[in-house]
């Protein structure tokens, strides 16, 4: 019975291969699905931190532009057009501000590099999500399964052409292919985990080095926003001092103090600190360095909570500022 003898070792070898791969995976404890929730959460939190940062940066730029406008209105600066702009064939039209010595600066400045750095980090987090979201292992498993059906048909057809009976190997093709398909799928899964490991190991020093810069940027931005609040609180406090019996003056003072308090409770620099910690833990968990996936996920959750709180607060302050502006223009 040569056919039976030849088919049994083949199937057994396939089964052994499957078992070896399975044991290897269990030992390594590295299914990409293990990391998926953590990486998904890191991705959304990073995006939120980026959006919050962009809004904070916009506050700084708006405050600076307003300061320049005030200086123009006092006659200390003059508004003019950026050379080469605002002509019929120009590509842009931009205002420049010039002092008496001729030194100029744009009225509407931008901090492209810091913003882009934050954007690149958010893109990196999105790329990590793309790796864990890749369905390559499932696709490979499905393709090997489909191939098994074709091999079975092929084997039967060749046997017919040769005029021989049914190929007994055919009975083993499908189960063996299922095992191989699963094993190859798991191999691709290992490639995914390896890609995550390499990417986080490479990005981690960059994120840790960017931390003080992002923290300082956030502190600078929140100082600008806080200075605006502090000035309004001081003005309303003075208005109340001059009219201590005026209930409306007291209410306005009290409300501004409450709003400022809410803004001060925002933990903007801590968001980036939490981001760096979360990424460090994720890198170590992937590298198998004394940090469990659960610990990494907990650090990511903390970062996500801070990013979400900051984002909500900034959005609320933005809405309040818009409402207050609308009220003032009425």
């Amino acid at each position, binding site marked *: 019975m040569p056919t039976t003898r030849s088919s049994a070792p083949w199937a057994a070898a396939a089964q052994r291969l499957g078992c070896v791969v399975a044991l290897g995976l269990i030992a390594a404890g590295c299914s990409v699905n293990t990391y998926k929730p953590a990486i998904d959460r890191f991705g959304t939190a990073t995006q939120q931190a980026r959006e919050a940062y962009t809004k904070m*940066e916009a506050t*700084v730029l708006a*405050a*600076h532009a307003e*300061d320049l406008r005030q200086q123009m209105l006092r006659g200390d600066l003059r508004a003019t057009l950026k050379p080469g702009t605002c002509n019929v064939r120009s590509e842009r039209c931009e205002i420049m501000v010039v002092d008496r010595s001729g030194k100029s600066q744009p009225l509407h400045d931008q901090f492209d*590099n*810091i913003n*882009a*750095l934050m954007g*690149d980090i958010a*893109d*990196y987090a999105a*790329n990590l999500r*793309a*790796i864990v979201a*890749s369905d*390559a292992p499932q*696709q*490979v498993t499905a*393709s*090997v399964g*489909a*191939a098994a*059906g*074709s*091999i079975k*048909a*092929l084997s039967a*057809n*060749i046997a*017919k*052409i040769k005029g021989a009976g049914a190929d007994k190997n055919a009975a083993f093709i499908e189960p063996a292919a299922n095992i191989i398909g699963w094993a*190859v799928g798991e191999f*691709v899964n290992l*490639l995914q985990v390896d*890609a995550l490991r*390499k*990417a986080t190991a*490479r*990005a981690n*020093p*960059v*994120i840790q*080095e*960017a931390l*003080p*810069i992002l923290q*300082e*940027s956030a*502190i*600078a*931005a929140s*100082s*600008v926003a806080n*200075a*605006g609040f*502090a000035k309004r609180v*001081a003005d309303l406090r*003075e208005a109340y*001092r001059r009219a201590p019996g005026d209930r409306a003056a007291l209410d306005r003072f009290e409300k501004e103090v409450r709003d400022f308090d809410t803004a001060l409770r925002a933990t903007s620099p801590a968001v980036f600190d939490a981001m760096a910690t979360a990424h460090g833990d994720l890198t170590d968990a992937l590298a198998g360095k004394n940090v469990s996936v659960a610990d990494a996920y907990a650090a990511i959750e903390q970062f996500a909570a801070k990013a979400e709180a900051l984002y909500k607060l900034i959005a609320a302050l933005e809405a309040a500022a818009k409402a207050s502006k609308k009220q003032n223009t009425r």
Partner: protein
Amino acid sequence: MSGDAKEIIAIARDTRTHLSTLELTLSSDIEAIEQDAFAANRPMTKAETTRHDQLRAMLAETRDAFVALGFVTLQALNNSDTVKRLRADIADANQQIQADLARLKKIAKFAEVTARILEGLAKLTGTLAGFVA
């Protein structure tokens, strides 16, 4: 962190500390004048009012200085070599991930193409087997 960004951050922190100290001192002085008059149950004297106005103006200027410091710090960090280098480094990491993603897609595509070729061969041999039969 290395180079210019470190220096920018150190200067910004120092300046912010000085401004915060000045802000606290001015606020305390303003409060002291107001409380003295309130404790004596009288309006502020002319001298107190002048001093109060001066202190308030200085406090407002200090807060303007925070705004200016915030802008200058961000501008300096934005133009720093460190930020430019970090951008290049994270771009490298992103390129590596893109290459790995492309590799994963290639493997899936290869498996799919192999399955299709085998399917085609099975159909072809099926037709041939039909002729033989």
